[in-house]
């Protein structure tokens, strides 16, 4: 059932970007998303930079040891329903940095991840695709959460 509520939800994904030790390649592409060529404001997305007001966390980087607690904290501060997108290879699996001693090797080692974005660095087009995929997942997730609340 597509309620008015969930319709509005998928039309207004507010994002928050957090760099947990990436090489900046993906971060630049996340910023490029906001700018004229890719402009994700078309989908109603806004960069809020505030976990309390965000719906979607865009996480880049393999999660260094020092970022770990901070990331968990941010995740907890984000109100439900929320979505985590791991941007790039290193956020997904830690790939380019798998030999490094100070990384956790992927966002999913710390917080649950909904969408994995491949690429090193991930291209903005793929990020948009991930966002759209995430929104459809979000719809399911929200429907599930609503049912839970009712049940």
């Amino acid at each position: 059932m597509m309620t008015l509520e969930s319709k509005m939800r998928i039309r207004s994904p507010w994002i928050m970007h957090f760099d947990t030790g990436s090489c900046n390649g993906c971060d630049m592409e996340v910023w490029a998303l906001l700018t004229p060529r890719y402009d994700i404001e078309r989908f109603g997305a806004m960069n809020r930079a505030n976990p309390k007001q965000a719906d979607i966390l865009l996480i880049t980087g393999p999660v260094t040891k020092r970022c770990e607690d901070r990331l968990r904290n941010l995740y907890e501060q984000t109100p439900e329903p929320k979505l985590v997108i791991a941007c790039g290879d290193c956020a997904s699996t830690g790939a380019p940095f798998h030999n490094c001693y100070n990384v956790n090797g992927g966002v999913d080692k710390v917080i649950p991840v909904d969408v994995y974005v491949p690429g090193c660095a991930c291209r903005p087009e793929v990020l948009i695709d991930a966002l759209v995929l995430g929104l459809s997942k979000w719809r399911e997730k929200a429907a599930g959460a609503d049912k839970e609340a009712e049940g």
Partner: protein
Amino acid sequence: MGRATTIPFGPQHAAFLEPLNVTLTLEEEKVVGAVLNQGYNHRGMEHALSLDYRKSQYISERVCGICSFHHSTAYCQGLESIYGIDVPERGRLIRTIMMECQRLTSHLLALGHIAESVGYENLFMQCFRERELVMTLVNRISGNRVHYSMNVAGGVKRDISPEGLKDIQATMSRLRPRLRELHRVFSRDRTLSKRTKGIGVLSNQAAREWGNVGPVSRASGIPRDIRQDGFAAYSMVKFSPIVREEGDCYARMMVRMDECLQSMDIIEQCLPLIKDGPVAIQMKGHPKGEAYSRVEAPRGELVYFIRANGKTALERIKLRTPALMNVASLLAMLPGCQLADVPTITVSVDPCICCTDR
């Protein structure tokens, strides 16, 4: 009020692209103390780079995504000087062109970032719009937007076709009027100069003491540009370092803006110099010896120290990135400024935290 409050700035903050934490002590809104907390981005690249010298070119690009080509160039140059070989001229010119392209993207990012930090959304968007021109250009040449993967010890592994050279020329001609327009806005806009002029002054003396490098030092009147040493093909082109004396955010911003125009000049000087020939030469055996290698990355002097002992693992590889020196000097600029100026000052040194922390 007179009562001091402490607020954390970052590691996740709207003005910062990357995790840097500045803990500010405020009196009302005046900053009376600042503590830098780094290390949010420390992955241990020096260890990873030393594992296998043949794979390190790949990893050296991943030290920093904004100046990836400079990192891999510095690494490859280091190996080349251990082997004692000279890269063919065509390879050196291609390296120079790619490095200048990357400088363009990096400086436009920094400029847009400064505009964003003072809430000048429109200018931020314009910077990124022009930046996309260069991004798509390098994408057409190298097949990648961020990590070009074109370097190899001994030269470059990807040649630029004649069409590619024409493409570069055409893009530069398209870019030039747009950058001139940007230059006009950055230098003349009244609200922007009100927020940047006289803010975050770093004196010449302080810049020398903190060992600042790159645009930050040149904005404080230190005429040092590693490109003058003539690595890659810089000995074949004419340019002079851009120096300003004020040492404030405005000067740092304008040095970057002028360097964008300079980069285009260098690229256009390089294009006619390219002649047919090999782009790389093969090297034999494992490296043995030690070398310093320096390049002028967009943020300043990037130093690689490599010591190899004839095995696949390098004995030691040490990176001294430009942002490490520049970010530290924030401590000299922040105390005494207003809270509103903290993002501008921080961003004006172009803090590349992935370089700083590695």
